[in-house]
């Protein structure tokens, strides 16, 4: 099969959803145009932005960092070491190696050093790992961005992630989540930085192909905590539909983002005003949305957390409440052992 663009070289990537197949060089152009168009259409980034790119070691976040650097944005990478045996070490290794190849040193937050490694924190707080992970990541995204004077936080969520989340929200009629789901979540006040998902137009196959062809060595194993994530069920359902009807995913998501869609209120709806109350520490809907929410949801007016100063609706923010639950569980355990 020949490349549909240059019509000379052998195609390396076939994309039925675009009725196209590209050689590596033409695919790079195509992919970067998809990302830059996604940024331009939704005004996700401005040339003067200082971008904190959240990198996990997986394909999407490393590819995102790569493209943003190539496009000339001022970026730094943030890696959060979740404290998951083996997996976190291997992921960190990939991030450090990639960063070094681009002359960068990522900011690293080690949750074990922060006293809140995900597996133990989830056990202590009796919460789902993905939910704990979402709370903790959200907190550090904002904190590191505010401390480092970044104007925006970028994550590697792609079209498959976003449509899986959309399907989940629709199936459960999560109207408040639907109203706020968008590749642009505006910042609000001090300590709450704007968040963007510049890969919203590209699929997982496309990011994987881009990463492979660019020689980006990413971690291919999945987080062992996300094996039962409901997002995988939605992804599989959508992927089966995509098999039969290529292009359905992007039509589904673009239709949802249409400003005339009554189900969503536009990026301004991502601000907390009017957010529907949810039960305390309700588990995240799925792994894909674990880091989605902005200020933790709740009722009342926004204020600074009494412990750490992060934006919250309660006396203390969900991160500090989580840390307190972990601390209490540890104390109880220690007391039992000493008896």
């Amino acid at each position: 099969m020949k490349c549909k663009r240059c019509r000379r070289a052998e195609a390396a990537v076939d994309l039925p959803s675009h009725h196209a197949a590209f050689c590596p060089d033409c695919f790079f152009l195509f992919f970067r145009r998809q990302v830059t168009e996604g940024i331009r259409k939704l005004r996700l980034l401005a040339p003067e932005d200082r971008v904190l790119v959240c990198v996990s070691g997986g394909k999407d976040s490393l590819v995102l960092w790569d493209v943003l650097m190539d496009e000339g944005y001022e970026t730094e990478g943030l890696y959060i070491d979740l404290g998951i045996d083996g997996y976190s070490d291997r992921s960190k290794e990939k991030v450090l190696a990639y960063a070094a190849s681009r002359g960068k040193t990522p900011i690293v937050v080690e949750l074990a050093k922060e006293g809140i490694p995900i597996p133990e924190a989830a056990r202590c707080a009796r919460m789902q790992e993905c939910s704990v992970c979402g709370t903790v990541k959200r907190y550090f995204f904002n904190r590191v961005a505010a401390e480092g004077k970044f104007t925006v936080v970028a994550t590697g969520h792609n079209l498959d992630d976003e449509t899986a989340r959309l399907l989940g929200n629709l199936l459960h009629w999560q109207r408040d989540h639907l109203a706020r789901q968008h590749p642009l979540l505006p910042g609000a006040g001090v300590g709450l930085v704007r968040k963007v998902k510049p890969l919203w137009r590209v699929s997982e196959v496309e990011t994987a192909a881009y990463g492979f062809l660019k020689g980006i060595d990413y971690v291919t194993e999945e987080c062992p905590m996300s094996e039962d994530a409901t997002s995988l069920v939605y992804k599989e359902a959508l992927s089966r539909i995509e098999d039969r009807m290529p292009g359905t995913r992007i039509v589904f998501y673009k239709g949802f983002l249409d400003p005339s869609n009554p189900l969503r209120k536009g990026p301004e709806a991502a601000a907390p005003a009017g957010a529907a109350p949810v039960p305390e520490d309700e588990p995240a809907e799925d792994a894909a949305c674990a880091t989605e929410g902005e200020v933790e949801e709740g009722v009342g007016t926004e204020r600074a957390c009494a412990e750490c100063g992060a934006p919250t609706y309660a006396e203390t923010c969900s991160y500090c409440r989580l840390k307190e639950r972990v601390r209490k569980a540890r104390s109880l355990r220690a007391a039992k052992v000493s008896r």
Partner: protein
Amino acid sequence: MYNTRMITVRLPQKKKELDLPGPRRVMDLLADAGVRPTTVIVTQGKKLLTKDHRVEDGATIDVISVVSGG
């Protein structure tokens, strides 16, 4: 005579390796391996293969899942 040269299909994330008869197209090999084409990329060394690429006997290909949990 049996054909002793086969195509080796490696699925590293599943820690699985299959030997399948060739020459065959990538999409046919994926069907035999029970893998849906929209969930993977297929590589041969440093080359990325399209789904209609014909793989010859004796070749080794890697099938890399692209589905991430979130």
